[in-house]
């Protein structure tokens, strides 16, 4: 389990995170929801130990995260960070060279699933396909937790559906997934847990199936209540 405990982060005078707490479990999809600029990406960076915090702590399986968290967590940014003139094969090779946890078998399966050609240059790919390569490079690592920053944003509906399909497949297996999004509509049925964020704080954190069961509300219903108060 990843436990985010009361983390605080300031950029200059701006308090981006003002005591954020939530948990994310293995085998579950946790979704951090918030309109842009509420610090979703900062939280991801904090979990990856990429940004020093001004307070609070993050635990993985009860222990403070440190350098070794890279071996157990992968961060998939919202846009691919490979050189655009590289081919898909070359960027996969790059991952093999840098990460011990690279799983070629899964990578090949993902290529096949997304119907991508290894010889294609990242430059020449559509936006949707570029997002798929980005996802592939992260998903092919054998780690316990996957963090994905806005995996559905700015791509066409068919790519979105395909990516949603990956979430439900054995390609994700029983790993823990944390995704950020500002658009929940498409993926309400996919997530286990929603964490609603605003102004550097968690407004509420709930299990989506439970809210449907006990209150007859959709995730969007809860969002409307919480954000429009």
């Amino acid at each position, binding site marked *: 389990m990843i436990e985010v405990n009361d983390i605080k982060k300031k950029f200059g005078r701006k308090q981006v995170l003002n005591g954020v707490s939530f948990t994310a479990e293995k085998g*579950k999809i946790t979704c951090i929801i918030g309109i842009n600029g509420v610090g979703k990406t900062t939280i991801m960076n904090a979990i990856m130990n990429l940004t020093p915090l001004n307070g609070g702590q993050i635990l993985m399986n009860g222990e403070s995260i440190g350098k070794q968290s890279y071996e157990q967590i992968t961060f998939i940014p919202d846009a691919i960070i490979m050189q655009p003139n590289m081919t898909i094969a070359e960027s996969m090779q790059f991952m093999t060279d840098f990460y011990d946890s690279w799983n070629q078998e899964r990578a090949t399966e993902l290529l096949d699933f997304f119907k991508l050609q290894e010889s294609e240059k990242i430059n020449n790919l559509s936006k949707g396909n570029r997002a798929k390569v980005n996802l592939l490079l992260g998903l092919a690592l054998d780690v316990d937790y996957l963090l994905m920053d806005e995996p559905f944003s700015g791509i066409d509906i068919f790519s979105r559906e395909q990516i949603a399909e990956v979430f*439900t497949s054995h390609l994700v297996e029983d790993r823990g997934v944390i995704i950020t999004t500002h658009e929940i509509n498409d993926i309400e*049925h996919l997530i286990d847990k929603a964490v609603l964020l605003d102004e550097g704080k968690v407004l509420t954190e709930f299990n989506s*199936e439970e809210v449907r069961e006990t209150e007859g509300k959709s995730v969007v*219903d809860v969002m409307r209540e919480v954000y429009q108060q």
Partner: protein
Amino acid sequence: MNVMFNKRDPVYVQVIRYFKEQIATGMFESGQEIPSRRELANRLKINPNTAQRAYKEMEEAGLIYTERNLPSKITKDEAILKSVRQELIMEAVDDFVSSIRSINVPVDEVLDLVKETFENEDDK
């Protein structure tokens, strides 16, 4: 397999309902193999934990059964299969009655209309 999920009922409840409909209409037959939990989640694009929950509930209700490592199957218990059909019919009737009651129509008039509509539907 294509299910339109609504957003306010628990997804596992909607999955169970889908299975019941398939059983009632004979699309799922007694003893028929059903997809694995993972497959179901994948096909319906729902959370795998939700698919797991639906299967668990259906197993407890005796709608499906699993023998050790084999794929789960639809029950062979005729009484249960029959009761599923009965349950769906009664649910639909209850819904219908409660919505028609609010319009205050005599039952005979309604029944005539129901028959008429039914026959017209058949002609289509």
